[in-house]
């Protein structure tokens, strides 16, 4: 009797598990096209990149193509331009991210008040981010920063600045400034969303308890904003590490190699010198470096994302 009962229970469990499996298979269907698409377009090419990186392969001389082992990797690490480009990439990512975050926080705090024309202000402040980066680069390069006719020199004239060649004298600063200008609105949007999600009652309570504005900002607002700042840094870095448009348009990586970052150097190697093998090795190095950084970043983002909305769906 008990044996029969337990065996029917077992059978029920087995069929439940089978139903579960079937259900899961069914649920996988809508996911598959998108997954397949992304795998084919992003993952397969990466494997090919690894393959090319082990070859001596120049598109100008396709007949000399041969297996080269790790030669490309040795070449890029002995290449001083590559090392410069690595350092430049770090500088031209970190500087605009941190600057735009700081300025963005300042502007977000200003906009989080009752101020006349708030909607219009918001519309205006997001515009630099929406402007096509290639267009922004041109407008800055010529109308703003030109030695002779640029607005910046005109505005700074009373302060003793005389026809400064910003782009060639301060190339990194120029690129940083343009990127900061474009990315500040992004930080404003994220931080503003953070500020507006502060629970009003808690702030009220702090005021009632006699905390002053600075104390509230330091011990309540800033901790509350922390995840938003982290998100801004992570996302900003993901995009800015690939900065290409402004560098291509404004400095072409120069003068010398002063603004050559990895994307720009890769562009020169692959699309100017047609050295597929070496460019691929660079690509692999960049991806490995990114995976390391992204693992840290993912931990941050995964904190922003919880199972809350998933309750009762599994």
């Amino acid at each position, binding site marked *: 009797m008990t044996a029969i009962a337990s065996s029917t229970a077992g059978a029920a469990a087995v069929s439940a598990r089978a139903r579960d499996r079937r259900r899961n298979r069914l*649920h996988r*269907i*809508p*996911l598959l096209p*998108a*997954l397949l*698409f992304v795998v084919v*377009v992003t993952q397969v*090419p990466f494997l*090919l990149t690894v393959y090319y990186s082990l070859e001596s392969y120049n598109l100008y001389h396709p007949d000399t193509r041969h297996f080269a082992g790790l030669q490309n990797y040795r070449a890029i690490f002995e290449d001083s331009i590559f090392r410069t480009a690595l350092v430049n990439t770090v500088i031209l990512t970190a500087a605009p991210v941190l600057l735009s975050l700081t300025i963005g926080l300042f*502007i977000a705090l200003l906009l989080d*008040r*009752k*101020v*006349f024309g708030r909607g219009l202000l918001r*519309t*205006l402040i*997001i515009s*630099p981010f*929406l402007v*096509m*980066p*290639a*267009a922004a680069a041109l*407008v800055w390069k*010529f109308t703003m920063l030109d030695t*002779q*006719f640029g607005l910046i020199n*005109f505005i700074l004239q009373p302060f003793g600045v005389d026809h400064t060649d910003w782009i060639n004298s301060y190339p990194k600063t120029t690129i940083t400034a343009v990127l900061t200008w474009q990315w500040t609105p*992004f930080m404003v949007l*994220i931080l503003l*969303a953070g500020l*507006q*999600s*502060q629970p*009003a009652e808690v702030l*009220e309570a702090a005021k009632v308890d006699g905390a002053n504005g600075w104390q509230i900002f330091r011990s309540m607002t800033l901790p509350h904003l922390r*995840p938003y700042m982290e998100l801004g840094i992570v996302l900003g870095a*993901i995009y800015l590490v*690939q900065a*290409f*448009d402004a560098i*291509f348009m404004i400095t072409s990586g120069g003068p010398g190699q002063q603004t050559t970052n990895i*994307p720009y150097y*890769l*562009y020169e190697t*692959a699309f100017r010198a047609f050295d597929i093998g070496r460019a*691929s090795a*660079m*690509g*692999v190095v*960049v*991806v490995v470096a*990114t995976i390391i950084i992204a693992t840290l*970043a*993912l931990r941050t983002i995964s904190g*922003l*994302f919880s199972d*809350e*909305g998933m309750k009762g769906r599994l």
Partner: protein
Amino acid sequence: MSASTLTRPTRARKTGPRPTRRRTRLPSLTGSLLGLLTWLVVLLFFFPVLWMVLTGFKEETDAATDPPKFAFSPTLAQYRSAASDAQAYLTHSVTITVTSTLLVLALALPAAYGLSIAPVRKWRDALFFFISTKMLPIAGAIIPIYVLARNLHLIDKQIVLVILYTAMNLPIAVWMLRSFLLEIPVEILEAARVDGASFLRQLRSVIVPVITPGLAATALICFIFAWNEFFLAVNLTTTNAATVPVYLVSFQTGEGQFWARLCAGASLACLPVLLAGWAAQDKLVRGLSMGAVK
């Protein structure tokens, strides 16, 4: 950090340091000073955009001058000639971005559904796989794509950019749409199921109406990213599939003489995205943060 703390804006709040009794009259003064400062800072940031649009209305002789001309008699000449120069590029851009955006939505909506309403067991892995492809730099994939496109004579073909932009935007769209789908209360879906609504019926009468604003916002975000994309467009197209950013490259060295034309062209290039961005303003932050911030 839970999603709920990120998502519930409590807007009924006066901000800024509120005074103790001693300073009851000060807030209005500091308030208006801060208001003025806000306007100044925002206008400072907006100014280059304004200057670009204005310079497009100048004659070339008024465009590059020392000192710069703030008053001038406007002309439409530059916008007209830029529009005719850029016409082919604009057409390519519209075709490529619209096609890729539609493709993104067609692929992302079912995927988002499979990661929220009817989740697979490993939904979390799939979700993070999508986002991780967004973090991999294009440097890791561009070279084989270029070589392949060359060998298959696909350089300068619109289809290549359509496919690449779709892959570029797909992770964002999946995350964003998922965040909208999660807002549909489970009870409503359950009720529809109990009432015997078929899958298609559920889709048509419950999910689609709720998700429409989300779909529109997602489409606008994808459109913005695809429209502004530069690296792939410059390297994979020359004339037949060249998009608007490629048109702008022709101004890269045109120092001095053609600033008005340049600014008119740049303004035209930016206009669609500015309009889309202003329209999607409320959802912009959600798209940019891939649904994490609402």
